[in-house]
């Protein structure tokens, strides 16, 4: 829970009392610290003093209610006049406690508030699961359920989120879902794809410009950061942002203010930032292409979106979801959806369904109706395993690995897996991203398996 009081001695009492009840107590000394704290984590309850140095408890209560309508706020007051209590309850306080603080009453009131908040969060989580996903995201796999649980933790707060995932994994959908589940859902959701804006226009696009700022600027333009006021800003493909703009963006995020291009007065929009990229930002930082300070600024809470090949049978679920009414999938087409690795992820699958819907001549989509690239992929051939081994032998450079994959020799699954990893690394000249794609596993999984099988990570020795 979060205790907001400018008197440390009252916060000490609340901490001593509630810590004994197994609650973690964080402290904020004024309204600004309270809102900053709520932007980073969402407690189960707020204990709020009516008198604060920078604002009134009632004004702060209104701000908290606006952003976190389900968060119970208990008002703490030395003044138990009826009109004060009525004003607090009418402003949306969950309950109030008079000073002097009574530990027994404090424990009971906070415990009730915490229980109610946890129940409300659980109900909303179950509602989402009953609707089959999060903000319309179709998924049943364990990897996506893990993602949803992480989204639950972060959605209600204002914390900056960095989404990482391959192209087509649904980063925009996740960002929209986070916005919808947040206290800012009534505000705008503004998206900008940093890879799609010409470098010369990027500053104006982000920060806006004043009339006459440059040739052609015949009227004032409000930039995306300002458009997102009161809502959420998604900076998609943030790694593609030019280094000089990264510096400007960092300054704007740190100072929470900036000037439009050609302007001379500050604008101070209030938005929640979500950034997304398909690149490994740590690698971009190491390569000098992305500012480390900006990375730390945006990577407050990182969400890894699983590739479709890591989502169990979700490909089939999605295929049936995207399939137009009146069409159904033949058994062999269903098998293709389950075995093809979907390097283009959900976007590729959606396009494949659109293609098949046009090509299918009856009410059934067959494997032959799918794009050639998919139906001719080795992974969907009847004897995919044998063909991969044969392909490996033909490559010449990976004879030992290919021998390990010989389908006529019975080996344990672990041996086959080790051999497949070695073959993939050899075939991709040590490019782990490519190897992951070839093996149909994520980078983290690959690292774990490399360690497990004692296979040296390509380039790992160079760092020493």
């Amino acid at each position, binding site marked *: 829970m979060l205790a907001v009081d*400018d*008197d*440390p*001695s*009252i916060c*000490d*009492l609340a901490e*001593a*009392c509630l810590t*004994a009840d197994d609650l973690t107590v964080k402290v904020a000394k004024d309204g600004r610290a309270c809102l900053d704290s709520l932007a980073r984590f969402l407690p189960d309850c707020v204990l709020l003093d009516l*008198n604060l*140095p920078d604002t009134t408890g009632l004004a702060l209560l209104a701000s908290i209610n606006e952003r976190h309508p389900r968060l119970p706020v208990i008002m703490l007051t*030395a003044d138990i006049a009826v009109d004060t209590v009525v004003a607090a309850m009418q402003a949306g306080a969950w309950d109030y406690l008079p*000073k*002097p*603080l*009574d*530990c*027994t009453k404090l424990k009971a009131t906070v415990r009730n508030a915490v229980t109610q908040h946890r129940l409300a969060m659980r109900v909303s989580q179950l509602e989402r699961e009953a609707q089959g996903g999060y903000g319309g995201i179709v998924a049943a796999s364990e990897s996506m359920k893990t993602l949803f649980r992480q989204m639950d933790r972060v959605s209600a707060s204002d914390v900056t989120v960095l989404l990482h995932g391959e192209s087509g994994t649904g980063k925009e959908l996740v960002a929209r879902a986070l916005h919808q589940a947040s206290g800012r859902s009534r505000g705008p959701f503004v998206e900008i794809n940093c890879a799609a804006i010409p470098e010369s226009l990027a500053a104006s696009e982000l920060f806006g410009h004043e009339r006459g700022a440059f040739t052609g600027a015949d009227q004032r333009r409000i930039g995306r950061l300002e458009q997102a006021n009161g809502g959420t800003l998604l900076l998609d493909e943030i790694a593609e942002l030019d280094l000089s703009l990264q510096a400007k963006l960092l300054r704007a995020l740190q100072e929470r203010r900036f000037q439009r291009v050609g302007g001379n007065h500050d604008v101070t929009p209030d938005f929640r930032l979500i950034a997304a990229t398909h690149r490994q930002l740590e690698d971009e930082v190491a390569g000098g292409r992305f500012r480390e300070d900006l990375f730390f600024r945006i990577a407050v809470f990182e969400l890894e979106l699983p590739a479709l090949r890591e989502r169990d049978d979700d490909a089939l679920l999605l295929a049936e979801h995207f399939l137009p009414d009146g069409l159904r999938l033949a058994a062999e087409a269903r098998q293709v959806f389950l075995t093809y690795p979907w390097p283009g992820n959900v976007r590729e699958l959606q396009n494949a369904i659109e293609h098949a819907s046009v090509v299918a001549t009856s009410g059934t989509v067959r494997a032959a109706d799918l794009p050639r690239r998919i139906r001719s992929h080795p992974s969907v051939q009847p004897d995919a395993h044998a063909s991969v081994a044969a392909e490996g032998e033909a490559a010449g450079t990976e004879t030992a690995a290919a021998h390990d994959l010989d389908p006529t020799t019975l080996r344990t699954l672990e041996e086959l897996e080790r051999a497949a990893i070695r073959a993939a690394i050899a075939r991709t000249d040590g490019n782990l991203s490519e190897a992951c794609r070839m093996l149909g596993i994520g980078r983290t999984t690959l690292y774990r398996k490399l360690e497990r099988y004692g296979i040296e990570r390509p380039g790992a020795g160079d760092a020493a």
Partner: protein
Amino acid sequence: MKPAADLDPLFRPLLPKYLAARESECATLHLALQQHDFEQITDIGHRLAGSGSSYGFPAISAHGRALEVAGRARDGDTAGAVIGELEALVRAALAHL
């Protein structure tokens, strides 16, 4: 001066820290009075009114309320007298720890 007998046992370990802070706060109050900073006197009085009884010292709360009233009225004489009494109360409480 001893804390109220019904003070929650969980709060007792906090008493030394609380009283030490009040002792140094008395010095702050003397300085504020010298500088005629009645806003600070009012603020500190308000906080003392809220915290004293919570720590089992209703007399500190009562003096806090008196300070708050004197501060609002910019009544330096009363404030000075209340600060003196408060200082004595805090020292007596510290002596009983």
